[in-house]
Structure formats: C-alpha cells, structure tokens
C-alpha cells in the first residue's frame, strides 16, 4: 500500500513538474523541474532544540531531516526563520544565532557564515541578498564580494519581498506592543538601485509575512494585536495587498467577500492561498480554514478541495513551488505540539492531497531547488 501510494505520488509529482516552456504541444526541449525542497525545522530554543535543515528529494520522495549537519558536521543553529535559493547558493537566516548561512546549492556545504543581527528573513535579487534584521535594519549583502550595507528601515522589520524591481519590507514594531505597535503599521519600499527608502505605505496593524508573484502582485499578513476573539479591543489578523500604484487593499467589496482574515499566505501567478485559524478556546482542539483566491480578480475559489478533513493538524506555514504549482504546508502535530516532530503536506494547486511525511521539530519554512531537464 505504501509502495503504491509512493509510486502514485511520484507519478503525479513528475507529471506536475513538467511545465512546458512554450505554448505548443511540442514536449521536446528543456524544462524547469523541481529537484528538491529544503525544509527549515525551527526547533525550539526554549527547550534547547536547535533548528535543522531537511531535504525532500522530490524525485524519490525521500526525506533527510538534518542535511546541514550531515554535510557540515555542525549545527544549523537556533531558530532558523527562512530559507531561499538564489542563484547557485542557499541562504538561511538563523535568528537566535545571529547568522546567515550561505550554502552551495548542489552540495549543501557551507560556503560562508555571515554574522548579522537577528535575521528574520532573506530575499535575493540579482547580485545581492537582503536580510531583514530585527533591530531595525535591512542588510544588503553583495554575493560576490560579501560586502554589507545596512539601511535603517524601522522597528522590527518582519518580512521582505522583491516585486516590480523594488524591495518591500513590512515594519511591525512588534516589540512595542505596549504602545500599540505605533511605529509599525507600514510597508517600506526600498529602491534597489540606490538602496534607499523610496516610500512608506501604511498598512494594517503588525504586518508580518509578505509575498509577491512574478506578475508583481504583493500580498501581506497584518497580524493584528493577538487579542482573543471575545476581547472588544481585538484587531484580527488580516490579509492585505499592495496594488501597482503602491496603494494598500483590500477594497470594501473584497472585505465583504471574506478576503481579509488570515494568518499566513502564499501566492503563485494564478492563485493566492490563505490559512486562517488557531487553537480553540477549549485549549485542546484547533480549527483552521484554507481559502484560495484567483489572483486576477481576487475572487474566492469555491471549488477548492482544501476543505476536506484530511488536513495538516496545526499548520505553521504555507508555500508554493512556482515550477510545479504544488502547495506545501508545514505543520506541528497538533495543539501544543510546537516542540514535537512536525510534518509537511503536499497538495495539488486545487487542494488535492498528494503526499505528506514527517519532518523535524516545528517545520517552518520551505524553499525549492530547481533545475532543468531536457526531453
């Protein structure tokens, strides 16, 4: 049964990975494919559990939980936040360890450790990678000379995305919760030519993750103030977007369409995937809902299969492979399972479950290693 499932999954994956390079029916040529998925397992610094970097071989569906230490004979460090593949290298910001790892994409060997203060997120663009530092800066790192330049962007930058040739940085002011996150509530747009702040875009309270697609659409989570649902002062976690004129949405019509609520998101050129929910008031169960929107009109896809019962027990992140359009969801094993072995769930673009497997402790972020095949 397991073998059948695996072969079926592999066949489906392989089929989905074959994304045509042109619009003809000629399937001969060179095609992008996904060779692996790098999975950041955050561990738990409070419990003394270091993070790990796992690798899913998407060809064989085999998973290696600690590829970083296996290859480099040393620990990834404490509280890794994110992973990206940029060019021939892999970049991993490790918040607690004040470090950005630079790895070789093929071998996963360490090319260079870069000391940087409390890195929250990393994005790459051309010959640079950009790191959001929790102490109020974005650090630009030249991937050839490794020279660093710091730009003060605002308190507690939380997320980065590069869209339309600019860097967008969410400023949460999250450590200033006693004063209502007063210096946050904005997205800073950074001009990448001069590495200067171009403008500030007001947004919802406590913005965090921000994503974009190749069409230049930008979506973000404004996490609100975390108060319980019964608290009259609660500001809920909502999804917002930034339009081509750098104006923040949604419009009131979209809000009435149930667009706004969400705690995490990911976007492809065609679809926006949103997760909303959390632990129920009984403390023992959790409820999550998945919503899929088309990115053209931001209309809700009512035929999404994400609503069926066999879902991740406690999602911690949602990611999309831009080549295969497969949706990956990282998950804890359940309520209060933050320091336990989690899992990764792989869905078709419409929410059909394809595969799931056990990962490390508190899986949190995914990046995809792409290559090409010639048929």
């Amino acid at each position: 049964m397991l073998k059948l499932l695996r072969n079926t999954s592999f066949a489906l994956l392989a089929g989905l990975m074959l994304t045509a390079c042109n619009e003809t029916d000629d399937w001969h040529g060179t095609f992008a494919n996904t060779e692996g998925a790098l999975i950041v397992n955050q561990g738990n610094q409070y419990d003394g559990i270091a993070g790990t970097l796992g690798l899913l071989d998407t060809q064989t569906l085999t998973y290696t939980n600690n590829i970083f230490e296996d290859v480099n004979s040393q620990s990834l460090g404490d509280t890794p936040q994110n992973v990206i593949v940029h060019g021939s290298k892999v970049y991993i910001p490790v918040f607690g360890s004040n470090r950005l790892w630079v790895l070789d994409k093929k071998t996963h060997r360490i090319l260079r450790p870069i000391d940087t203060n409390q890195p929250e997120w990393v994005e790459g663009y051309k010959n640079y990678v950009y790191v959001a530092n929790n102490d109020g800066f974005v650090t630009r790192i030249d991937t050839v000379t490794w020279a660093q330049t710091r730009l003060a962007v605002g308190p507690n930058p939380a997320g980065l995305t590069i869209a339309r040739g600019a860097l967008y940085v969410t400023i949460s002011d999250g450590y200033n919760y006693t004063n209502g996150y007063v210096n946050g509530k904005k997205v800073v747009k950074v001009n990448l030519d001069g590495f200067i702040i171009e403008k500030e875009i007001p947004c919802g309270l406590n913005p965090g993750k921000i994503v974009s697609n190749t069409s230049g659409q930008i979506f973000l989570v404004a996490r609100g103030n975390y108060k319980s649902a019964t608290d009259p002062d609660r500001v809920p976690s909502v999804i917002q977007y930034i339009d081509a004129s750098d104006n923040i949405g949604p419009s009131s019509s979209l809000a009435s369409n149930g667009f706004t609520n969400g705690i995490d998101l990911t976007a492809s050129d065609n679809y926006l995937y949103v997760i909303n929910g959390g632990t129920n008031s009984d403390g023992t169960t959790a409820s999550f809902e998945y919503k899929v929107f088309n990115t053209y009109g931001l209309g809700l896809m009512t035929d999404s299969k994400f609503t069926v019962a066999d879902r991740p027990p406690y999602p911690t992140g949602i990611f999309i492979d831009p080549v295969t359009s497969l949706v990956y969801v990282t998950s804890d094993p359940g309520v209060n399972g933050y320091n336990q072995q989690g899992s990764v769930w792989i869905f078709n673009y419409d929410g059909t479950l394809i595969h799931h497997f056990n990962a490390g402790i508190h899986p949190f972020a995914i990046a995809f290693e792409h290559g090409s095949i010639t048929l």
Partner: protein
Amino acid sequence: MAMPSFLLRPTVLLLSGVGISLCGRAQTPSDTSTVLSEARVEALHLSASQRSAVPLQHFDSTALMQLGVSTTADVVRHFAGVNLRDYGGAGGLKTVSVRGLGASHTVVSYDGIVVSNTQSGQIDIGRFPLSQLSDLSLRTADASALLCPVREQGNATLSLQSIELSRKTVGPEGNLRLQTGSFGQFNPTLWLTEHTSARHALSLMADFHYAKNEYPFRFENGVATHTEKRLNSRLRDTTVELNDKADLGSYGTLQSKFYFSNFNRQLPGPVIYYVQGNHERLHERHAFVQSRWNVGGQKWKAYLAGKAAWGESKYEDVGGQYPGGALRQNYRQREVYATGGASYRWKNWEGALATDYTYADLSSNLSVDNDVARHSLLASGSLRWQPANFNLTLRLLSATYWNQSAGAEGAQNFSHLSPSLSFGWTILSRPRAHTLLRAHYKDFFRAPTFTESYYYHLGSTDLKPEKTRQIGLGVSQQWQPADKWLLSFSVDGYWNRITDKISSIPYNLFVWRTVNLGNVRAEGLDISGRTEWSVRSKHRLILHANYSLQQTRDYTDPARATYKKQLAYVPLHSGAAALAWENPWVNVSVSLQASSMRWATNEHTFSTETAGYAEWSINFRRNLTLWHQSLSLSLDVQNIFHKQYCVIRRYPMPGRAWKASVAWNF
C-alpha cells in the same frame, strides 16, 4: 542511717540528632554498705522523621556538615522525591519540585512563615545561602504538626530554619565567616548576637556574595567540542536580617524577623549556537517583617503570626530590537499575611483549628498590565486520634480566593475544599528497634499565579485551580544492631494524580495562552537511609543516601505523541549519597549526586534526550583554637571529576571548582 546514695551517670551516645542511647551505671559510693546492681536504660532517640505519619526528611546543623555540601540546592538534592531544576552556577535559578507535582506546588517556609512569590509562584532557593541556615526539612503530602499555618498544609513544604538564637547566657556572641572560591567568589558573612538577658536575644546577620561566575564549559556542536565561558553571569547579592527572640515565660515565645535582600544579577541565558554573551539583567529587592508568637503547654497550644512583605523585580534586556534600545519590565508585589490557630489535647485526642488571611497585589510599569490583587482566606480543622502506637489524623482545609484587576476583568474567584487523611502505626517498638508504617491520602490544589492569570497575551483570567490527589504508603525503620552502630531508613511509595494542569500553549502562530490542559500521573518510590558507625574513639563514619524513582507521565490525550511519556526534565532515577569520616584531625565528607537521563520535552525524540550525570564532591573541615579564638576551616572541591553536564539543556553546570572558608566564632 545514711541513705544509700548513688549517682546515675548517663552515658550519652550522641548519634547526630538521629539516635541517642541513654545508658546509666550505678557508682560505688565511698561509704556504702549497699552496692546497687547496674542499671541500664536503653531507648532509641527517634527523630521527627521516624515518628511522622507523613514523609518528613530533615537535616540539622550537624547533619548538614556531614553532607559536606556548601549550597542550599546541594542539600535539597539529598532529599528523596525531589526534582531540583538548576539553571547552573551560583546565580542560576533553582526551584524544587516534589513527587512530580511541579515547583509551584512546593511551599518554602523560612523560620516558620511561608515565603511567597505571587508573580511566578516559584521560589528560588538560591536566595537562601546555606551559611545562614541551621536546619532544613522537607515534608511531603501534609504537615506533620497538627497546629501550623494553613499555607504549610499543602502538597510539600521545604522548611528553612535560620541559625537559632539558643544560648541562654547573657552577652554577645558572633561569627565572622569569609568564603572565597573559583570563578571570583567572595562571600563574607557576619552574624552577631546580643543576649540582653537569659530570655531575650537580638541578632544581626549580614551577608554579601559576589561572584563573577564566568566558569568554563564544554559545548558540543556536531562532531566538534568547544570550550566556552559563561559570560554575563556576575552576581552581587546582599542580605541583611535582624532577628529578635523573646521567651515570655508562661506567655510563650515571640520570634520576629526583619529581612532585606538586594540581588543584582546578570543573566547568562541559555547557551546559543554561535553567539557568546547576553545582555539581560535582573535586579530584585525583597523586604519583609514577620513575627510569630507561640504559647501553650501540654494540653493546649496557640499561635499568632503575621508578615508584611514587599518585593521588586526589575528585568532589563539591552538590544536594538526594543523601543528605546532596551526592554525594561518592572514588577512590584506586596503581601500582607496573618495567621492564627489553637490546638487542644484531651487523652488520646487532639484537635486544631487554624486560619490564614492573605492580601497580595502586583503592579508593573507596563501599560498593558493592570494592577491586580488577590484576597485569600484559608481555614483548616484537624483532628488526631493517638492511642499507643497509632495515630490517625483527619484534616479538612477550606480555601477561598477573590481576585481583582483594576479596570479589567479579574481572574476567576473560587473556593476549594481539601480533605486529607494520614495514619502512622508503630508496628515495632523495642529498645533497639523501631518500625513505623504510614499512609496518607490528600486532595489539594494550587491557585493560578498572577503571571498565569494576567501576563500580557500569555495569561488567562478563566483559569481554574490545578488539582492534585495523592496517595502514599511507607515504612520507616530505625534500629541499633550494635552499641556503636545505628541504622535508619524509610521507603515511601506514592501515587499522585494531577488534573486541570495549568500549561501555556500556542494560541496561534504568533502568541501563546495559558489554559487548564492536561492530566499527569506520578508514581514513585522515595528511599532514604542513614547509618552511623563509631569505628573507635573519636572516629565515626556516617553514610546518608537517598534514591528516588519518579515515573511522571502525561495522560492528557491518547492521540498525542506525548501520551504516557515521562514529563520533561523529570528523571526516572535520581539519588544522592554522602559519606562522612569524623576524626580528631580533619573531618572529610565525600558526596555524590546523580540522575538518569531526561528528556527536554514531553515528546521523546533523539534531539531532546538529555544525558544523565553523576557529580562527586569532597569537603574537608576542621575546627581549631588559635590564640584562644575558635576557628572553623572548610575546603570544598566540587565536581572533582570535572563532569560536564546540564540539569536543564543549554544551562551548563560548572565543572571542577573549589571553595574555601574560614569562620571566626567569638
């Protein structure tokens, strides 16, 4: 006719507070015409531990010296059934859990009155230097004394007794002690007592403790092992106490204390991969004044006690991520406490009533926190039936809590009734042997702390009390196989249940909440033993050992990976032992503390396994007289085999270290 005179000369075989054998021998009078035959009276002196119907472990000042330890935490490790959470080093937090119940269930009392921390509910026993203590005891399940403050009738009480003002001669006496050691330790202590009369004494105790505390440790990273230093670990503690003890004759005794401490500590935090140092600091100040009046005779007893306490904690972490470049969280807590009670004995019956009232409040500098307060009223009624060789104790405790929060909803008010039952049956009572069988049942609870109820985001005002049920059965034996050999041991098994366990869980991806979630079962065995052997004149060997089996498992949800698994940081096997050789030259004590492996989380995976350890230490001490002055010298070598280990992961314990002290008694 001259009456025959004789002198009964008792020969006291002092057995360090555990056993005394009284022997008498008739003397041949110089003018006698009648020779009395020899009279020999033998009886074991039973310690309170051997007589108690609930498990009670006790070290007096002599036993403390024989253990050869130098910190309060080290003494606590020699109690069976204890799980000490030690975050390492002289300044690291040290809390005591007993029989799988969690540190918030353990009451710490200092000179007969409970020390409280309404903010976190846990007492750092590192606050109480061993040099200031003369007696430590741990009582599990219930109070052994029928009449005592209601707050001491909880699940477990660690009683700390400061140096007694016992001398009855008028005049001053004192002790000046200087201790120094590895990692920049410097610890002078002054203790001055003025006996203004045979019935009244005043004392002053002042203690200053400085330690740089930057001890080396080894840290494994993959295949490599690095030697690093605990940075940002300095502590600078000052404690001052004034004690007053008055014997009021038929009006009883009155004992009062003023206490002030000022703890200034850098916090090294957990060891983090690739990061050295930390910027956290904690500045705590505590002050209290307490007084206790005891009166009574054979039939009736009564007491009144009161306490007013104030505490301040200022936490600071410097970093660019915080508004203004630093996080500053300041908390102030105040408490007023009053207790009183009386007991009466009639034939084989004894009854006691006691009541406690406490007002506690907490305020902070954080705009998101409200000033919160709690009134609590506790009352207990106890009845003991104590015919020969048997005692049965029934107790009913009533607790009512009223919570207030300025400008917001307060935590739930609640009431709870807690019954308990214990019996002790002396099944063997011979001049050289004594065996006691004991059993208990107790239903108890703990109230949510202010942090659990109110801390921003984390706290929940809906919390119910965490409930416990305990059943225990044990046997305690003491016997004297030979004149110069005394043995005692106790074996106690227990079966504890915890429901509505208060736990903090993630509410969503970003924030946590505290809820009543979880059931825990704890079953275990506490074994402790002691033997003393007078090898020859002025040479004695004393061995004290304890072993704890603690199976403390999660029974919350069968669907979880943690179901029926041992809770984090509770070792299945742990124990300690100390062997002392007392001789005319230099007394030597060798001690061992050991623990089996533990898990860092309730889920047992390879990455959360925490290795067991065994730490050996040795202590040399000598009392001598120089220039008509009494001096006490002591040298400790702790962790003599330089074992590298952690009690809590990422908080390494020090390796080999020495400590030397000289005390001048005047």
